[in-house]
């Protein structure tokens, strides 16, 4: 009885997967073409982080030579820090979601 119900469940599941297979693949390729990919999103985030990092380093350099005001330097450095933190947090979140999906047993 129990074995039967498990076999039934598996066959129902594979049937559902088959029937969903073609439309799911289509919609998947559609969204992939319309929206930005994960790679490009990460790339943009990394670029923003690198840009603000460069700005903060430039300000630090000017501060060492006495050309920049300390408040400006502090603002630039903390802005770079925060941008990097945001990018890292988003990346971690998306990678963990990806891992969760990977661990799913079909």
């Amino acid at each position, binding site marked *: 009885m129990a074995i039967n119900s498990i076999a039934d469940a598996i066959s129902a599941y594979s049937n559902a997967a088959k029937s969903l297979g073609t439309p799911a693949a289509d919609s998947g390729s559609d969204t992939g073409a319309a929206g930005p990919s994960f790679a490009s999103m990460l790339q943009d985030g990394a670029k923003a982080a690198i840009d603000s990092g460069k700005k903060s380093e430039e300000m630090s350099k000017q501060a060492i030579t006495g050309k920049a005001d300390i408040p400006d330097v502090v*603002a630039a450095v903390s802005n770079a820090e*925060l941008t990097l*933190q*945001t990018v890292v947090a988003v990346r971690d979140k998306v990678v963990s979601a990806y891992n969760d999906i990977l661990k799913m047993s079909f």
Partner: protein
Amino acid sequence: MDDLNKTSLIGVSGMKAQSERLRVVSENLANADSLPTSPDQQPYRRKVLTFRNVLDKQVGADVVKIAKVDVDRSEFQKKFDPKHPGADSDGYVLTPNVNPLIELMDMREAQRSYEANLNVVNVSKTMLTRTVDMLR
């Protein structure tokens, strides 16, 4: 740009304005005893500065800037000191129109305003960090 980022930039502009104000105060205080070296010269004249709101295109909001560092046109004080090289024929020397008490109050005000702007920057930074921490 994020509103909280703008907030910290505006706060930073306030901090910079107040530090310039403190610089003027220190000039006035340091030169409170700068007397003339001959009778035809004038002593140090007190400096005052004025703030002005300026629309920052990059921020998209009004930030504070120093409009002008001007001079205080009030009268010089006189001190009786016939031995001083800057004394006139009656023995009086012109002294700067700097009142150290006023300068000290101005210094304290600059300090408090600086701290207020610092707190604004700190609060906006904390709010941003805690928002990002929601992702962890």
